[in-house]
């Protein structure tokens, strides 16, 4: 990929991420036999939020949020420039920590609760991402995304990695059943609760970037077979939407147990599968 093309992909990530999010909402509506909003709905929401009155609870709250958005965007740039997988995981962790600090910086009890829960869900999914990065290293011998995408397709050895990543996707995107950190009826959106107007747009657009982050992880499992990679992404997109529509939220401690038992367990199985059967 040329540098200009990578730059364009990274720069316009919030734009086409918004279209993916719109498609996601329409898909979920169709699954419930509703008509659903227009595909461009996230952009209407964005323009509306720009025209609302600006509310700031306190300065650090907003500044940490801006840091979160910018560092997440930097992580998306690193993905499209074919950067190191470990740097990308830790960059995303740093962005999430900014988000959590922003939640702790206000007195709202819902925001604090959301931060606590987000911290626990990070504790749950971060080891799975690391284990999966190790699996990718064992198969391709490198952490560089540009080299992984040039390597021949070896999906047979990464089947369990794919399955364990399916547990990470709803946790990062805060979808059911792993949405205890957001829980928009129970704790009114958790960390998002104190944002209004144009600053809420940052939280909203960050969702699109998170989506690109997790689905690009799935895409690189297919290495140089881009069509198969797209198929994997579309499949997991459908599966995650279906599970989101058909399950209820589980408590945060059940989330930890489920992710450690199944997600992390599948990651360990994946390492043994690669070491014993594929090399």
């Amino acid at each position, binding site marked *: 990929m040329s540098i200009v093309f990578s730059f364009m992909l990274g720069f316009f990530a919030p734009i086409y991420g918004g279209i993916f999010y719109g498609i996601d909402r329409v898909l979920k509506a169709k699954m419930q036999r509703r008509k659903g909003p227009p595909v461009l709905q996230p952009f209407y929401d964005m*323009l509306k939020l720009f025209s*609302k009155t600006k509310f700031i609870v306190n300065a650090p709250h907003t500044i940490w949020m801006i840091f979160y958005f910018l560092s997440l965007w930097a992580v998306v740039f690193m993905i499209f420039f074919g950067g190191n997988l470990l740097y990308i995981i830790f960059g995303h962790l740093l962005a999430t920590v900014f988000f959590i600090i922003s939640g702790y910086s206000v007195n709202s009890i819902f925001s604090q609760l959301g931060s606590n829960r987000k911290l626990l869900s990070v504790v749950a999914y971060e080891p799975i991402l690391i284990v999966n990065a190790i699996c990718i290293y064992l198969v391709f011998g490198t952490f560089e995304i540009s080299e992984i995408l040039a390597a021949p397709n070896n999906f047979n050895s990464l089947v369990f990695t794919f399955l364990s990543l399916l547990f990470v996707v709803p946790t990062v995107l805060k979808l059911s059943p792993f949405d205890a950190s957001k829980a928009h009826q129970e704790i009114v959106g958790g960390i998002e609760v104190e944002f209004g107007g144009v600053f809420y747009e940052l939280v909203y657009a960050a969702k699109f970037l998170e989506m690109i982050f997790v689905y690009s992880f799935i895409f690189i499992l297919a290495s140089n077979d881009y069509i198969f990679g797209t198929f994997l992404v579309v499949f997991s997109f459908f599966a995650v939407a279906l599970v989101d529509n058909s399950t209820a939220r589980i408590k945060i401690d059940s989330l930890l147990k489920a992710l450690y038992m199944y997600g992390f367990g599948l990651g360990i199985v994946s390492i043994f599968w690669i070491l014993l059967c594929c090399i």
Partner: protein
Amino acid sequence: MLHIKRFLKKSPWVLHYNTGSCNGCDIEILACLSPRYDLERLGVLNTGNPKQADIFLVTGPLTHRCHDRLLQLYSQIPDPKVVVAVGSCTCTGGVFKDMYNVNNGIDSLIPVDVYVPGCASSPELIMDGIVKALEILEGK
């Protein structure tokens, strides 16, 4: 020049508050969001958060206990905003009119833009009221 204001109409986020209603209107409001009526096709989202809301849907005859909370929620919604009073009690006090524990309707306390009558209001009426509210929101 892009007129940002006209997008207010395309993504109204709704905050719903019950000021001591019998739950009849609340059930009808939730029915609006169900697959049969599907308010989301107009871009409506039911948020639980006043800071992200545009339309304030209020039900109930406004008991004295709800006074302060109604004012707090109203003042936390960023401008521009519209208030929709859903149900007869909310408009005038309804069957609870002049009772010792209620104010007669919420317009004694906050300005109301759209009145939706009915005991309980049907989903069609509520949707009609919200569409009316969108026209008012655009002009604000």
